[in-house]
């Protein structure tokens, strides 16, 4: 390095050339100020690969790799396609996705009401109610499933028994049971995504709308709802995504009858138990793709709402 300034002094290296020279010298230079970059990033990538990326890659690779049972590429693909387009599988998609979507919509409505009441009103016990909203996050799904079954079961359930006797509604071991479990586990998502937005929603916007002569109902539809819509959609999609993959709480309350109350995760487990690994992997890939579609939707919603706000 010492030779460089002297070269400049002698006048036969211009300043820009010298910068170039220095750049070459700098190639070996450390690039980070704080310590630990290689150690922490190295471990992060190693652990991420070991626990998440390589296992997921193994799943995807399974649906295109010939095995003993399916020795050719086309045979593997053929088998995968047969499994994932089988009526039993398709029925389970409809069930998983349809019910999760309905549950997410229900949570959209009740989650909005809950978030609104928790943010806008003062009433005794509010803090406890607010804390309880997180319960489905903290509660193991098997405990939730067991508890919900005990409440909504038709024979001896604390509520389900009466619903059956009075109205003839059967809940446990039917789709209604699955729906209730999905509403339970998805509830916090909408509330927790809406709360910060409702807090930020400036009441002067509402006041302005009120001054302009719109009544409360118009204010709600024209002012409040449009400004919370991205958060509402995000919350609903999060609840939807969670519901699609749910397994633990549903096992208890549903009877898992093929073509009727059998959800996709259950079908995966059955394929594994039948040692049809390729078929299980195929269904796994279908679920992965659908999850990614939901993630992409959430990101798109957030992207568009942020660009609209900034423009």
């Amino acid at each position, binding site marked *: 390095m010492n030779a460089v300034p002297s070269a400049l002094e002698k006048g036969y290296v211009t300043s820009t050339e010298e910068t170039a020279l220095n750049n070459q010298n700098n190639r070996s230079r450390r690039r980070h100020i704080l310590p630990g970059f290689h150690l922490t990033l190295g471990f992060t990538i190693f652990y991420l690969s070991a626990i998440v990326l390589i*296992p997921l890659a193994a799943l995807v690779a399974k649906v295109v790799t010939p*095995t003993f049972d399916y020795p050719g590429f086309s045979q593997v693909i053929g088998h995968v396609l047969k499994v994932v387009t089988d009526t039993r599988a398709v029925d389970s998609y409809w069930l998983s996705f349809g019910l999760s979507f309905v549950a997410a919509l229900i949570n959209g409505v*009740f989650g909005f009401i809950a978030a609104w009441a928790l943010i806008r009103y003062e009433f005794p016990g509010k803090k406890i109610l607010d804390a309880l909203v997180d319960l489905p996050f903290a509660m*193991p*799904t098997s405990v939730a499933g067991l508890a919900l079954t005990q409440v909504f079961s038709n024979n001896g359930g604390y509520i389900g028994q009466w619903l059956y006797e009075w109205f003839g509604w059967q809940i446990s071991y039917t789709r209604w049971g699955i729906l209730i479990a999905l509403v339970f586990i998805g509830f916090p998502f909408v509330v927790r995504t809406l709360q910060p937005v409702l807090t930020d929603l400036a009441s002067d916007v*509402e006041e302005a709308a009120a001054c302009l002569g719109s009544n409360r109902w118009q204010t709600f539809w024209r002012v409040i709802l449009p400004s919370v819509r991205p958060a509402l959609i995000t919350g609903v999609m999060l609840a939807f995504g969670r519901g699609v993959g749910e397994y633990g709480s549903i096992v208890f309350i549903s009877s898992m009858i093929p073509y009727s109350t059998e959800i996709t995760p259950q079908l995966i487990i059955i394929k594994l138990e039948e040692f049809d690994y390729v078929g299980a992997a195929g269904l796994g890939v279908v679920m992965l793709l659908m999850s990614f579609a939901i993630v992409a939707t959430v990101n798109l919603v957030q992207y568009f709402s942020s660009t609209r706000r900034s423009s």
Partner: protein
Amino acid sequence: MKRATTDPWLARYAFIGILVVFVVIFLLFPVSVVLYEALKGGLGFYFSALTATHSLTAIRLTLLVAVAVVPLNTLFGVCAAWAITHFRFCGKALLISLIEIPLWVSPVIGGLVFALIFGQKGWLGPWLDAHHIQILFAYPGIVLATAFVTFPFVARGLIPLMQAQGSAEEEAALTLGANGWQLFWRVTFPKIKWGILYGMILCNARAMGEFGAVSVVAGSVDDRITMPLQIEQYYLDFSLPDAFALASLLLLLSVVTLVIKIGLEWRHLAPNYVRPH
């Protein structure tokens, strides 16, 4: 006082009423049912249910799994947050998205991927069989599947926390001659310890309660299943009191988790944490 933005009283009471009914029927009632069912046979019966052999082995395995998974995921979370918040490198946004994958996919996928690797017809199955190494339907498999589903918990909490704190104190420590180790333990760790604890208790609650992923990789052999699976086993065997006794333990765990979580959240909200003298 009636303001222009005040909702009509009817809407007010209706909203609060719906919230209360929803929370009571869907959240509070099921919780009470678990406690009631667990304890209705009396305390003596409750404890004998908990100390039954199957319950005890399940509790033991669950604790062993948490003891392995929580520290591993915590170490990962701290490393990932350090690298992401203190350095500029390309692919950072991608890395953050990859870390979140386990939150999006079904827990059953978390078990499936390891079954496809270590199972009898999986990638490594024949080799493992030949060397008599048991991963699937055993402790290592359960640990891996649990690590998968609880993977992002610590990192997700720490990244925004450390981003908000910035690097100024670390840089100051550096100019004062602290090496990397001193810098982390003396400057960074005290700032993020509550954030680490926060992530750890969430990770722990999920690790102990995980069902979907573990049900794929855990055997149906009785001494190879965790508490949530044992609850299902009891349920299928019609021994409901045992199921509820075990469930009440996990419920207690989730309530404790919730209380610590809320406590930490309030503490984080407090401006300028002042050390009590």
